[in-house]
């Protein structure tokens, strides 16, 4: 016997919030009604539907208050590091220092969605010569120009090499506007030559030890820059502590993913899981609070599993590849009769634990090389097949981001691998930052995928 979990509209959340407050709800400093973020221009919020738990409220308030947190960090004299094109390496280093806050400027790619194109960041990027033919992460460039979303960092780092061409162009334009950037190079992860010394990376990919040594030398330069910025040494003991804390967050997220994706009925909606997963990259500018947010979500999910509370029973188990530019599409999955059973949002290596049995910088180099984006599409497709199979997926959705060049071929490679190896139906969806006009077309594709998967199940 299960109880159906019903997501709430923003207005319903406000009413529930008042009830909770009357009941003595205790909240962190960034708490409050969700609708208060509308006043900051987050116009997309009334069009989303939310998990009704206090843990989810905390997650959303944490996500939507990051700008305030960064402003407080600046006001209190903490050093701010913007770690660009980095899905979980430099922030681990930065948070190993006592007076440094790191954030993810690339996260600005969600501003056009959350603010429904009202923030003017695309317009500012257009004016810099980066139009809609570029990945929506050009919003980051616009955010630097408008200076309305985050303080200008004291140090900007950016990985370059085997990363997205669009992002490199955008970051170079930013550099050209007068923002100094510490570039560190990440090479294309190649298969080791026969007889070449190699190492298994977190997550299972393999790289040559020569490549690991190279990345380590690049991270050594980052370490020196961070030490200079913070005015304190970033020695191995500090780094090891930082890695331990990052791994604690990764373990909590891994446990949350396991509980949610492997349970039936699904105890947490796809939208909240997307947000929760995104936190792991840069801790939403507060590592300690990220740990607490995960702890609350885990407790809520455990309680729901015990009580048999969840989304619709029998929903089609969907493995989702790539994050969506429009958050509303995650609601749509459930509207169409689906649920998540696993994800690969381009940063699966930020969920894998960083090795603690090797020298810290070497461990971080291995973690950086495990990035699915720096290897071949075939490598990435293999991991997706492995994880989709482990999640007992019945269908796979590969979402594309318009203009994001690193997605152009990968979708095809992943689709082919999933169809060939797992025999599962798979679709690709292109999701722009505001997808309202495409909603009927997106719905048709997802519904058709659900029908196809259900038909297979019946057979």
């Amino acid at each position, binding site marked *: 016997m299960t109880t159906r979990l019903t997501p709430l509209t923003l207005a319903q959340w406000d009413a529930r919030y008042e009830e909770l407050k009357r009941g003595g709800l205790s909240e962190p400093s960034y708490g409050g009604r969700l609708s208060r973020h509308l006043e900051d221009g987050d116009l997309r919020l009334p069009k989303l539907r939310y998990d009704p738990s206090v843990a989810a409220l905390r997650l959303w308030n944490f996500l939507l208050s990051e700008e305030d947190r960064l402003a407080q960090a600046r006001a209190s004299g903490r050093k701010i590091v913007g770690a660009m094109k980095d899905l979980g390496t430099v922030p681990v280093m930065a948070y190993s220092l006592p007076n440094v806050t790191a954030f993810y400027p690339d996260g600005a790619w969600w501003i056009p969605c959350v603010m429904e194109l009202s923030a003017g960041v695309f317009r500012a990027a257009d004016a810099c010569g980066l139009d809609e033919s570029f990945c929506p992460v050009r919003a980051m460039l616009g955010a630097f120009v408008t200076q309305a979303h985050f303080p200008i960092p004291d140090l900007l780092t950016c990985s370059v090499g085997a990363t997205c061409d669009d992002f490199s162009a955008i970051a170079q334009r930013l550099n050209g506007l007068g923002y100094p950037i510490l570039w560190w190079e990440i090479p294309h992860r190649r298969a080791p030559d026969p007889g070449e010394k190699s190492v298994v990376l977190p997550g299972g990919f393999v790289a040559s030890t020569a490549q690991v040594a190279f990345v380590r030398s690049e991270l050594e330069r980052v370490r020196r820059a961070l030490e200079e910025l913070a005015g304190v040494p970033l020695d191995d003991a500090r780094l090891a502590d930082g890695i331990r804390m990052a791994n604690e967050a990764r373990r909590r997220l891994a446990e949350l993913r396991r509980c949610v994706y492997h349970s039936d009925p699904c105890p947490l909606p796809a939208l909240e899981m997307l947000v929760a997963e995104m936190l792991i990259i840069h801790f939403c500018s507060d590592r300690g609070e990220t740990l607490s947010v995960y702890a609350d979500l885990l407790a809520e999910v455990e309680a729901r599993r015990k009580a048999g509370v969840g989304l619709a029973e029998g929903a089609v188990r969907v493995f989702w590849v790539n994050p969506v530019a429009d958050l509303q599409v995650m609601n749509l999955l459930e509207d169409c009769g689906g649920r998540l059973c696993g994800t690969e949002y381009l940063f699966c290596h930020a969920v894998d634990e960083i090795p603690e049995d090797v020298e810290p910088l070497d461990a971080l180099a291995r973690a950086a090389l495990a990035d699915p984006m720096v290897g071949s599409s075939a490598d990435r497709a293999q991991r997706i097949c492995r994880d989709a199979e482990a999640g007992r997926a019945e269908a796979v959705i590969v979402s594309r981001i318009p203009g994001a060049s690193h997605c152009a071929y990968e979708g095809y490679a992943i689709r082919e691998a999933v169809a060939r190896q797992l025999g599962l*139906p798979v679709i690709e969806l*292109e999701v722009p930052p505001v997808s309202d006009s495409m909603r009927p*077309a997106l719905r048709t594709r997802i519904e*058709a995928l659900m029908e196809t998967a259900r038909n297979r199940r019946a057979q």
Partner: protein
Amino acid sequence: MIVVGVDGGSRAVKVVLLDADSNLVLAAGERDQSVDHEGVARVLLNELLEKRNLTQDAVKRVVATGYARNLIRFASSTVTEITCHAHGVRRQHPDARTVVEVGGQDSKLLRLNEDGSVRDFQMNDRCAAGTGRFLEMVSVRLEMPLTEIGKLASRANTRSAISSMCVVFAESEIIGLLAGGVPREEIAAGVQQAVATRVAALAGRSATPPVYFTGGVARVSGMDRALADAFGQPVQVARDPHLTGALGAALIAARQARNGG
């Protein structure tokens, strides 16, 4: 027991009346779409019922499909056009393994299992260059009815190259070709090939034969040949290709009705 399939397409509404006990088609028809999708569907349904001396009371169940399916409020349930086309083609061509459907606003490629169920599908989502909308635009530019494009193209000795992925840019190309004195036949042939190439790209490396062609664009003469060229194998036009989706919806309605739906 009478059941109904309604296909609310972007260009036209199609309705099929089916005897659920025998699965025989009692009547079928189409009308041009308008902003009042439900109104058009209702008028068409009433016409067909009248033709068979039936009243709405006789209708046990209605399944709607097509892009406007959620606007047909008198429908008992909705099913996507992917599933409906598979059912419709299976009924008429049980050997089908691949279905190409080209409608007014999108194109689809369905891979079917031996039992006719959908194994996998692809849909265009980037542009209208592989859809009927493209052909409509061209017919306006070439100042001729859509149905005549195929005849015109068949007179061409060579095909113009239409390279744009976007209908708007392609229109500019066509204007340029016309201004350059390129014969309309060559442009029409080039456009058919461009549509076919976009559609064939959905298949990736292979399309298991036999391949059947459905949707309104399948009635445009010459499109089957252009598709066959692009696929590198025969492509057969399904029987009453514009009605395949509505027929599939009616067959699903019949099954639902038999199951007590």
